[in-house]
């Protein structure tokens, strides 16, 4: 099921981008806390009275932040910021599409699949890398925020322990996108297409969630988007694990991942 050599090669190929993503997320979260520190609680409250800003923040974190502003709830913006998504998803899309669609596209699949390893083994070995790296990338915002708080304390301390819950939810979102990407990568033969389809899905998801606060149609559609199941502020407010949201995301991820594996096992590997 697992080939150590393929695992190591995939990890080595992903290492550079992983380190960049780690640095980018840490720097972003630290800077985010610092930027927030420049507002006092009252200033932030005033800032969040702006209708457009409120809408945008609501779009990001899934709730009206102004009604319950604390340094801890303010940090949910940093857990749902497009920049954070960009760092995580660019890593994810790169790694998930490198092996199947990427190998076929480059023509290296001919040698890879002529080796005495099953397609399942290649698929699983690759998946172990992005799933493991995802644990770091999804939970990294919390240490990043902790570091930011240490360097530039806010007007009240951030309750870091509570931030782990949205971070776990973020990992479930990562798994869902990864599963979809693996499925697409197992089906298509061009890497560009393998990247474009999941990217289109998550961007459409963001767009629908954004519009949901303005359009009743988008509100109805929101349930079928991935980001609907990641609402960090709601999680923080309730203090309860978002079990159903996480199970939905993990379910999507696992189902797509398994469908990709089944497809790969049955498909033809065309010449480049």
């Amino acid at each position, binding site marked *: 099921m697992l080939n150590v*050599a393929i695992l190591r090669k995939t990890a080595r190929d992903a290492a550079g981008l992983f380190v960049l993503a780690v640095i980018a997320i840490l720097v972003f979260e630290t800077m985010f806390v610092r930027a927030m520190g420049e507002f006092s609680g009252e200033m932030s409250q005033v800032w969040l009275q702006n209708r457009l800003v409120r809408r945008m923040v609501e779009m990001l974190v899934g709730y009206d932040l102004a009604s319950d502003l604390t340094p801890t709830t303010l940090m949910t913006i940093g857990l749902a910021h497009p920049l954070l998504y960009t760092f995580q998803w660019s890593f994810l899309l790169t790694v998930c599409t490198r092996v199947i669609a990427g190998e076929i596209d480059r023509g290296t699949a*001919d040698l890879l699949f*002529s*080796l*005495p390893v099953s397609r399942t083994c290649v698929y699983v070995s690759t998946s172990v890398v992005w799933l493991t790296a995802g644990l770091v990338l999804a939970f990294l915002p919390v240490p990043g925020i902790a570091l930011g708080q240490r360097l530039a304390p806010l007007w009240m301390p951030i309750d870091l322990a509570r931030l782990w819950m949205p971070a776990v939810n973020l990992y479930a979102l990562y798994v869902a996108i990864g599963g979809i990407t693996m499925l697409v990568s197992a089906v298509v033969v061009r890497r560009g297409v393998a990247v474009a389809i999941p990217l289109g899905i998550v961007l459409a998801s963001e767009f629908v969630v954004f519009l949901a606060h303005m359009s009743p149609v988008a509100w109805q559609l929101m349930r079928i988007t991935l980001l609907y199941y990641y609402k960090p502020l709601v999680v923080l407010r309730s203090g309860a694990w978002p079990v159903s949201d996480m199970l939905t995301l993990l379910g999507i991820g696992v189902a797509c991942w398994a469908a990709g594996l089944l497809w790969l096992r*049955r498909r*033809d590997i065309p*010449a480049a």
Partner: protein
Amino acid sequence: MQAIETHRLSKSYGSRRVLEGVSVDIPTGTCCGLLGPNGAGKTTLIRVLLGFLRASHGEARVLGQDCWRDGPRLRQDVGYLPGEVRFYERLTGARTLAFFNAVRGGGHTAEIRRLAELFDLDLSRRVRAYSQGMRQKLGLIQALMHRPRLLVLDEPTTALDPLVRRTLFAELRQVSRQGRTVLFSSHTLAEVEELCDEVAILRGGRLVEMSRVDDLRRRAVRHVEITFRDGRAPIAPPPDALRVVSRDARHLSGTLVGAVDPLLAWLAAAPVEDVSISPPHLDDLFMAYYGGAEPLPC
């Protein structure tokens, strides 16, 4: 034991049939040439044998194992060089081979070193800096390094200079002598004739010929030119095997298929001034297959 067996093997993409009813048996220890024009189905057949493609109909077994179901196990004993070999550009030659060695379970370092010396390939450079010929050598090393029981080479001499080509052929003869099997795909007849003892010819997805090269040679055409002394052509008719193309009192020109004995017996009784009989040329036979004309009679 057969190294490769296919029975009524077909492969279609939608309504397009790429292979149709191909049945071949290639015994272990044979060096078999797979010939055919571009688009004949050679690469498709190879890809089915390696488990890249699933046959639409029929069966394919390699080293006694089902190509599709037992793929990973049988590929332990197979070395493959694709027609257009591509590598991970950022790796060096050594790292590339180390990766293949590791996936295969290791233990082939000495053979890698021997082959790198044999083909005179600098493994310390990155693949992206390799010329096409160097990439081809790297591909050959990865195919040969684990001393496979079956070697499948798709157009292996592409981009190789004549010297390296000779080295490769010597290595492949050695492989064949060791009782291992070589499937050598090419569209160059001369290469197959030089190296292989069996040949399979594909055209339009069908197997049109499967013979020993010696048998084909016996069926091949020899060009015959005869000059008679004093313009006195023999009265006896020429043997049936000699197809006369042009004839006058002094000269006869024609083609001969099969054994030369009847011709020599006929010539012995004739006042011959000069005679030339060319070696058997497979080209005409193959051009007949390639071009779609009926092959020459046995």
